[in-house]
């Protein structure tokens, strides 16, 4: 390797004719950094740089830094064999004398029968405190154990966290599906009621279609608990929204305050002719049945609702299809997994 490099550098100028030199140079041209013309330092710059350098030299390093430096310098000197650097070793007259006596690098001194002879000097370890024998290794062992334990703990927590996140995501997903199922259930229920009502009216008077769906005034407790939450939430939202609107509209008065002196035109202009919003009658009431139901796991709630849809409407939430008959032959099953 070394020889090869030598040959290269030594032979090139003589072996290659000058014509080839260009080409040769081109082949192994070193692409240097574009030489930026070195800006000439101004006097002030030089002075500042010198002052900075002097300061750096003169800076008294903090004790800890200095001690650490000394220690590393010492460690470095202690660990480097004097024989490992061939250049330095070749200059050493002591080693040259030993070589004359027949010493070979890597071997030990003494009789060749002496197999235990050492090749490395005894290490030096400085004792810095009054710690008893075994304290350092005990400390190291404890430290190691702590690190290991800490590692385990972190890992364990990491596992927990992942599990928790996964569960939370799953819950959010299930809640979403449950909400969707509730909407389906409400719609289907509404449709059925309408058909029933329609059929009933058709029986009495055939007024035809166009009948608007009125605001639900049905008490919440009459709605199936399976999707009652949907209605309740909507009603609450409606109420809040309405109240906010009324509050903003009715400057200083209670929205329901009916001023007898106000004339009708004025009332109309102020948007008070509208029917006053009337919440579902039991909206403000406690609903323990719903609370109980909501306390269930979303998976459980979803399952019940899906079952309900199948039984009542022969509708499979997962197939998104209303089967013609109760048997629902083509539906693979009750659960989501079965529909994969």
């Amino acid at each position, binding site marked *: 390797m070394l020889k090869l490099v030598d040959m290269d550098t030594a032979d090139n100028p003589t072996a290659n004719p000058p014509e080839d030199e260009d080409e040769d140079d081109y082949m192994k041209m070193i692409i240097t950094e574009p030489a930026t013309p070195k800006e000439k330092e101004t006097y002030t710059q030089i002075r500042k740089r010198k002052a900075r350098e002097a300061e750096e030299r003169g800076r008294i390093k903090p004790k800890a830094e200095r001690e650490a430096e000394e220690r590393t310098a010492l460690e470095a000197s202690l660990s480097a064999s004097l024989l490992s650097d061939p250049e330095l070793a070749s200059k050493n007259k002591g080693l040259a004398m030993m070589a004359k*006596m027949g010493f070979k690098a890597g071997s030990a001194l003494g009789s060749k029968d002496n197999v235990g002879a050492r090749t490395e000097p005894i290490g030096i370890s400085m004792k810095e405190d009054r*710690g008893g024998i075994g304290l350092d290794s*005990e400390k190291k062992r404890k430290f190691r154990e702590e690190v290991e334990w800490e590692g385990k703990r972190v890992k364990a927590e990491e596992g927990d966290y992942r599990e928790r996140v996964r569960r939370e995501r799953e819950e959010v997903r299930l809640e979403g599906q449950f909400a969707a199922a509730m909407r389906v259930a409400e719609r289907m229920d509404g449709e059925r009621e309408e058909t029933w009502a329609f059929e009933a009216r058709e029986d009495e008077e055939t007024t035809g279609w166009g009948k608007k769906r009125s605001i639900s005034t049905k008490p919440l407790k009459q709605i199936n608990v399976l999707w009652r939450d949907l209605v309740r939430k909507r009603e609450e939202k409606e109420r809040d929204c309405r109240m906010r609107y009324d509050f903003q509209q009715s400057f200083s008065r209670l929205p329901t305050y009916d001023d007898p002196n106000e004339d009708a035109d004025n009332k109309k202009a102020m948007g008070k002719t509208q029917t006053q919003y009337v919440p579902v009658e039991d909206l403000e009431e406690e609903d323990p049945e719903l609370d109980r139901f909501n306390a269930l796991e979303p998976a459980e709630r979803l399952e019940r609702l899906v079952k309900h849809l199948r039984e009542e409407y022969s509708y499979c939430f997962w197939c998104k299809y209303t089967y013609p008959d109760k048997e629902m032959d083509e539906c693979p099953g009750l659960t989501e997994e079965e529909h994969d």
Partner: protein
Amino acid sequence: MGEKDVTSSKKAKSLKTTDPSQNPYLSHMYDTDVNGYGNAYGNDNYCGNGHSEENTLAHFKRHATTAEQAYKAEDGPNNPFTSQPLTKKYFKILQTRRDLPVNKQRQEFLDMFHSTQILVFVGETGSGKTTQIPQFVLYDDLPHLYGKLVACTQPRRVAAMSVAQRVADEMDVRLGEEVGYSIRFDDKTGPKTILKYMTDGMLLREAMHDRDLTRYSCIILDEAHERTLATDILMGLLKEVALRRPDLKIVIMSATLDAQKFQKYFTIEKEIERRTLRIEAPLLAVPGRTHPVEIFYTQDPEKDYVEAALRTVLQIHATEPEGDILLFLTGEEEIEDACRKIALEADEMIREADAGPLRVYPLYGTLPPAQQQKIFDPAPPPSRPGGPPGRKVIVGTNIAETSLTIDGIVYVVDPGFSKQKVYNPRIRVESLLVSPISKASAQQRAGRAGRTRPGKCFRLYTEAAFKKELIEQTYPEILRSNLANTVLELKKLGVDDLVHFDLMDPPAPETLMRALEELNYLACLDDNGDLTRLGQLASEFPLDPALAVMLISSPEFYCSNEMLSLTALLSVPQIFVRPASARKRADDMKALFMHPDGDHLTMLNAYHAFKGPQAQADPKGFCHQHFLSLRALQSADNVRMQLKRIMEKSELELVSTDFNDKEYYTNIRRALIAGFFMQIAKKDGTGKTYKTVKDDQSVLLHPSTGLSTDSEWVVYNEFVLTTKNYVRTVTSVKAEWLLDIAPIYYDLDTFPKGDIKTALQAAEKKIQRRKAMKGGR
């Protein structure tokens, strides 16, 4: 009734063994009159027979002595080595000697000694091996008849001195005659000496001039388990010498049971019937006098081992039955601090909880001998008859681990640390660091509790930590040392192939490489690795090569007298005393000697003041008043004298610059560089930190320095490795001097890039400018 007898006899026995005058390590403390031959009673009983056997050992056959023969010779009536009548004291000691565990295996030892050249002997502390085995050898080797000596090495100077004294007493001779000792800077032997206790380092130095150790007929390496640098080198040498000198006997003595390593190391190859057999050195083990020790560990690692140790000591005192406590801590400061705290807490316990009296003694290497001796004082008696027992607590370094025997210790508290020398070739730093001990060390410590009766050892660490965290054996010193000095010695010893020199635990190759490099920079070795003239000269000095080179070059700087003093001062413990109770006053006194250019100069000033006529009139008072250590100064004086002798022998001039010359101190500072140019640090930026040259380590000047941090360049004597790195004993120098005096080390063409190189280049330019100016004129 019978039980009472047993306890009373036990007490008598323990009393006998706790008598410090009986402790071989302390015998130098007691003035005994055993050597006064005149006042010996009871000789009449033996005189009649005595004359007929002029020399009791004359009929002994070398290397065929039996234990029985030896016993008979020991029984007198005349001293077999001096033919003088034996004293009553001798027989009294003989009685205790015969009780020692090694004595039971004297014949076994002799048999083995006869049959082999190299023998490994294991005996725990208290077995009597250090005092008895050399004597067993004397009666068998008969060195006095052959003009030879028996040498017994010790790792510590104090041990060599004390044991020699004890054995002189046991043999009824005067120390320095038949039995002597030889330690660095102190030799107490004579022409009659046949048994010489010496430090292992001294034997090594002797080998430099007598490679085959021809003076000796037997060499005993004691406490080999301590694996000091010198012992390891000696073992390597003896392996070779044994081949050249089949008549030389070698005994390796160890206190621990890992003796197989020694046996294996001293394997010999023998050719029997054309087949080469590898035979390990034979082993003889003698049990020590030990009792079982129950070991307790803590449930959890301790947050603060010192605090835990104090708590444990106090708890033992409050709840455990009678028995003294030995606590191991790491260093002087920690020990003194602990002693103070224990004493305070114990006082409170005595006042408030009716605890027994507690006496606390420190024990460490640099403690004056008189204070060291106090640890052998008996424990205090109960404060009132029938009250809770009193006890003593000894808070010591690992000196108390193997080398010192303290009887009466029943409880050992071991936090598991000790201060150990470390060396790393990569940063070239040799320093003392608090480090965990080895399992072998911990077992030794525990063993200390079972010397008198069954004991308990409280280890302030868990059993799991003991098994997992502690290394099996303490690293031998050779692996923890800078080997520059050792390499110089080995070169002088004629070991040329350092790479394959058979050491029990060869050091890392980088360590040898650094040592060779350092010696090359110091011009002690040439590029071929051969000793230069300077190297030859440097090896004559029992000093580190850098110090030796500095001393040898000092006449060139006109200050060899001063450098001689300084070298001596750097070779002894710290001369400035700074007791915790009077730090401020001590600092004020030190300020009197302070030289603004460096600590070396301050030390020199203090020494000169000490040598002045005023101080010499009352050295003790002078030292006390000025917070100087008389002991350190006196030993520096002694070292100086020894070094001066070597200087004179080597024909090195002793010169001084006139004190009033303005170059007086400059010359000294320049002379320092001649040896310590590899230990230079330069100020780093504007802060307080310095960077070491070449190794590039950040250091601070040690707080004890009198040098201000304005000095750009400093030469340092010592690198102190702690949580902060310090250099201690520093003197300011100039960059120009470095380039001038050590041009090879400071060769700027090969110097690593960085701030230091830039600064040196600036200095070089300055020199050249000056030269040009001078040339122009």
